[in-house]
């Protein structure tokens, strides 16, 4: 009927097995996805591992790459973005937004990819602890399905190998129902979630983490200019095009504070000041 309490030192270890299985799964996932990412890097040539793990995860990566090309459809912008990928910010007027910066990393860590190789140990520890906390909150509150964040949704869909358009629909439905909070910088001029920029920034983070040493010495300087907002564009998307990193939307936002109350208030045809960077 009732089990007597164990003493402090031999407290029952109830979840030992679960924890072990979970860590093995996480380790396996991390390994396989890392192999795929390494295999797909340009520097590693065309070599593909004849490994089931690779085949299993290939869809994810193909999709990530598609996302990048979709977001960077203009070749010259893509080249600029490419060159800017692992570059440290060139003393921008404003700091990249932490929320937008943290989310792609968060998605990657949910996918078991360590995107924090460049992060200092303290930040890495914070990220690891945060990831553990999020899992614990979800499992304890039993809200695995309800307590969904944009990050979880994206990570889950990528894990399932869903298409870009599926993810786009999924995120927009969740956002419309108010299930998830969308960073203002990822809200387009028509009020939708800018999924391609979101996916592109995940790829940017993944690339950063995979090639920490190959940071190019210089990147094409961004000229001060005026940018006309197009249909269905978000501030994050514009930052991604121009600066190569969606997190630099704050630079544009700060320069246009007189016209914008919030980053999600851009509208088609609006002229934005783009500071040199």
């Amino acid at each position, binding site marked *: 009927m009732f089990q007597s309490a164990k003493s402090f030192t031999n407290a029952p270890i109830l979840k030992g097995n679960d924890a072990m299985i979970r860590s093995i799964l996480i380790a396996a996932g991390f390994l396989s996805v890392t192999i795929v990412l390494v295999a797909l890097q340009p520097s590693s040539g065309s070599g593909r591992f004849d490994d089931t793990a690779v085949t299993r995860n290939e869809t994810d990566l193909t999709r990530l790459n598609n996302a990048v090309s979709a977001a960077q459809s203009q070749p010259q912008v893509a080249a600029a973005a490419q060159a800017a990928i692992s570059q440290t910010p060139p003393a921008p007027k404003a700091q990249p937004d932490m*929320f937008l910066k943290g989310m792609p990393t*968060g998605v990657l860590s949910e996918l078991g990819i360590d995107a924090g190789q460049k992060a200092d140990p303290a930040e890495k520890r*914070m990220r690891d602890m945060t990831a553990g906390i999020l899992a614990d909150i979800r499992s304890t509150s039993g809200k695995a399905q309800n307590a969904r964040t944009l990050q979880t949704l994206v990570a889950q869909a990528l894990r399932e190998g869903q298409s870009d358009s599926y993810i786009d629909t999924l995120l927009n439905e969740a956002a419309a129902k108010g299930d998830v909070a969308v960073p203002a910088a990822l809200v387009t001029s028509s009020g939708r979630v800018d999924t391609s920029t979101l996916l592109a920034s995940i790829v940017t983070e993944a690339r950063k983490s995979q090639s920490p040493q190959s940071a190019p010495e210089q990147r094409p300087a961004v000229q001060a200019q005026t940018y006309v907002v197009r249909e269905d564009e978000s501030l994050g998307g514009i930052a991604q095009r121009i600066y190569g990193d969606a997190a630099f939307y704050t630079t544009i936002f700060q320069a246009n504070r007189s016209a914008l109350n919030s980053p999600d208030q851009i509208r088609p045809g609006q002229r934005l000041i783009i500071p040199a960077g």
Partner: protein
Amino acid sequence: MRCLSGCLFALTLFSAPALAQDVMITPELTAKQVTINGETITIAREQNPDARISDEFAKTARACPPFCVHPMSAGTGVETLGELEVMDFLEARVANGKGLLIDSRLPEWFEKGSIPGAINVPFATVEDSNPYRDQILEALGAVKLGESWNYDGAMELALFCNGAWCDQSPRAIQSLMSAGYPAAKLKYYRGGMQSWVSLGLTVKKP
């Protein structure tokens, strides 16, 4: 006759451990059982009369600062809890997903043992300096609206650390309040692990 009494004595002796529940939580309560997301936890008291506090919690002289004695309240409007209230909180809030019992200590301490049903949210992770803090607030049910947060749907939190000499849960409570977390949704179990262990209450290793 001697055999009979001997047998009876032996019987009493052997059956004693199974029957003994001398150390109850209250006169009416031998143990608290709570099911949290499918897992049933049991909180009871140590029954071994020889059990003593050992290790970390036997120490009485800790340098202050940082290990200073903390006031009863961790913040205006934040309720302070005792052990029975912590158990009630598990039953009334954590079990139905409306609240969380939070161990604010560092993972190294949490690993050594914590209150059953508690999750580890180290105090530093809810500080402004954690670039990923927003994700924790979101997971707790807060919704970001531009630069500010809406906590209408946020969970109730009961926080604790090593006890009255530990500043980690009061710090976590202050950090949450400066992020706008409503004081009415925050509780402080001041006694913490020191009191919990000294009462022989069940400690669980994660």
